[in-house]
């Protein structure tokens, strides 16, 4: 497969007081090389869980992985042990940009100290053997110059000064630029950005998104971009996958997604964006609980087009155009134009 990442039939549950919450229900998902894919959906739809499953950082005591495979660049991540994942995959080939750049920095260490720690373990210059306490001076210097270079690339003024500061001494936008820089330092193949602009001011969001997109395409890095905000997805994504209640329902190239969505949920989602035409439209009903979710297609209780087939068995993947697939027995055909 030409794809960088392919998730097949992934099933993940969390044990809770009320039983096993089926958070991911046989999810299929893929990202091509150099592609920016948005994973959109409402809170609780499983997008963060999917992202964390790929990264390998699900909470150990409550997460249960059922069936499925995560194929990344030729290796099945689910088959690897934790240590290999931590050493070789995380922070090297797959990096992470968190939602809240403030609390993701340790408040009592300088920014420079934390970046140094990252480079110590994850620098592209590091060889497999010299992991431990050995942080050779020569490599330190090359690492440091790389760091400075990248800090300039993300348009941070005074990189030298910033390294000496503490996290609370820099602004939110600067912190997220730092996070982006840190995610690029190990020269990864895939960056997982979990709602990276949610915590930022609106004016800064667009800057950060553009920066991220430019850097990724320059370096041929793929991005998995989760968000609940369709606007930001539009800004930056090549392709968008929609999730609902632990199931992926549609995946389409960005333009097609907004112009001609096929899944009933996607259309309702796009309709719910406030518009001058129809004001604010919600979707009647509620997101289902995941301990005892609806059978088959989990959207069926709220879908006007639902039939018995929808309740009995979840629809399979149906192609709906180039790079466009949908999981529905009654895909919508008339495109709804949304501004």
């Amino acid at each position, binding site marked *: 497969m030409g794809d960088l990442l392919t998730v097949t039939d992934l099933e993940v549950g969390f044990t809770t007081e009320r039983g096993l919450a089926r958070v991911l229900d046989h999810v299929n998902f893929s990202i091509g090389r150099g592609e920016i894919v948005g994973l959109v959906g409402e809170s609780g739809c499983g997008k963060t869980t999917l992202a964390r499953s790929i990264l390998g950082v699900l909470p150990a005591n409550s997460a249960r992985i059922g069936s499925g495979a995560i194929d990344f660049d030729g290796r099945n991540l689910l088959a690897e042990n934790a240590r290999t994942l*931590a050493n070789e995959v995380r*922070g090297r080939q797959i990096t992470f940009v968190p939602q809240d750049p403030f*609390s*993701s*920095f*340790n408040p*009592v260490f300088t920014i420079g100290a934390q970046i140094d720690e990252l480079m110590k373990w*994850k620098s592209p210059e590091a060889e497999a053997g010299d992991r431990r306490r050995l942080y050779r001076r020569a490599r330190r210097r090359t690492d440091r110059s790389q760091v400075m270079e990248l800090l300039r690339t993300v348009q941070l003024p005074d990189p030298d000064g910033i390294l000496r500061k503490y996290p609370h001494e820099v602004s939110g936008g600067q912190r997220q630029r730092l996070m982006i820089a840190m995610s690029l330092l190990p020269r990864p193949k895939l960056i997982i950005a979990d709602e990276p602009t949610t915590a930022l001011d609106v004016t800064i969001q667009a800057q950060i998104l553009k920066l991220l997109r430019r850097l990724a395409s320059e370096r041929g890095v793929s991005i998995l971009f989760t968000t609940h905000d369709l606007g930001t997805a539009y800004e930056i994504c090549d392709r968008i996958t929609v999730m609902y209640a632990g199931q992926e329902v549609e995946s389409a190239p960005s333009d097609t997604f907004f112009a001609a969505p096929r899944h009933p949920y996607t259309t309702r989602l796009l309709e719910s964006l406030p518009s001058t035409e129809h004001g604010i439209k919600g979707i009647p009903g509620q997101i289902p609980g995941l301990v005892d979710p609806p059978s088959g297609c989990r959207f069926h209780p709220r879908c006007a087009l639902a039939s018995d087939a929808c309740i009995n068995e979840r629809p399979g993947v149906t192609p709906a155009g180039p790079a466009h697939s949908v999981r529905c027995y009654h895909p919508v055909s008339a495109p709804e134009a949304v501004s």
Partner: protein
Amino acid sequence: MRALVLTVNRLIWFVPTILGLLIITFTISHIIPADPIAFIAGDNASAEQIAALKEKFGVDKPLPVQLWNYIVGVVQGDFGVSLYTHRPIANDLLSRLPATLELAFVAIILSAAIGIPLGVLAAVNRNSMLDHVLRIVTVSGLAIAAFWLAILFQLLFAMEWSVTPLQGRVDGWGPDVHTGFFLIDSLIMADWEIFGDVAHHMILPALTLAFPAMATVMRFTRAGVLDAINSNYVDYQQAMGIPRRVVIWRYVLRNALIGTVTQLGLIFGILIANAVVVEAVFDWPGLGLYAVNSILQSDYSAIMGFTLIMGMVFIIANLLVDITHGAIDPREAH
């Protein structure tokens, strides 16, 4: 710069606090139902003799004047005269202070050296058997009376098994006194035998004193580590594949410890409070034993002197803790 301002701020409150302490001790010492002058004078003293004594001790003057004289005296180092020995109390107090401080320091080091790693382990292995056992130890440590623990230790280790000396600070003469801290003094003399003897005598009292402090340290470290482990910065480091042991022992621990430092004042208070009885049980020649003996001798002045110096030590210790906390927590500077 900011740190300096904060330090000065705290220092400003130092003086009124000490003054307040002086007022309190003065007040307490003047509600004695018994009349110490009559006590000194004896049963057969005449009225003139009593009046003369009153004048000598300055207690015939109005209270505010007495308070002023008292404050002035303390500032000059005069803590009054012992009713029992008729010697200045200040000398006795100062000569005994190092013994208590040495014991307290060793106890703090012990409680930190044992309590911090155990607290980290308990947090990292939350709800495991180890965690439960340590939780029991913590709760016990805070429920056990220090004097009873001292007696139990003494019973077991000194009397039954004879592995430690029964009491005292050292057998025979101690090292030549330079600092008053026998461990240091014996090292200065390079006399390993005395050093060993002093250390040997110190084990039980220090352990007894350290036990409740260790329980507290363990409890706070555990809470601090748990807090930090659930934080986003740990999440980020793990997501980026930084080895877990580095995350815990370098980053989480630092965050947890900064929180624990604020508790050092509390811990020091526990130590001082328990030092009195621990010294009594082990016959350790420090301030605590001095207090106990003064109680037995009804030496009210000595007790007041003891209260004063203990209070001062505690206030100074808290001040140092505050300053340290301000220095090591970068968030404080803002």
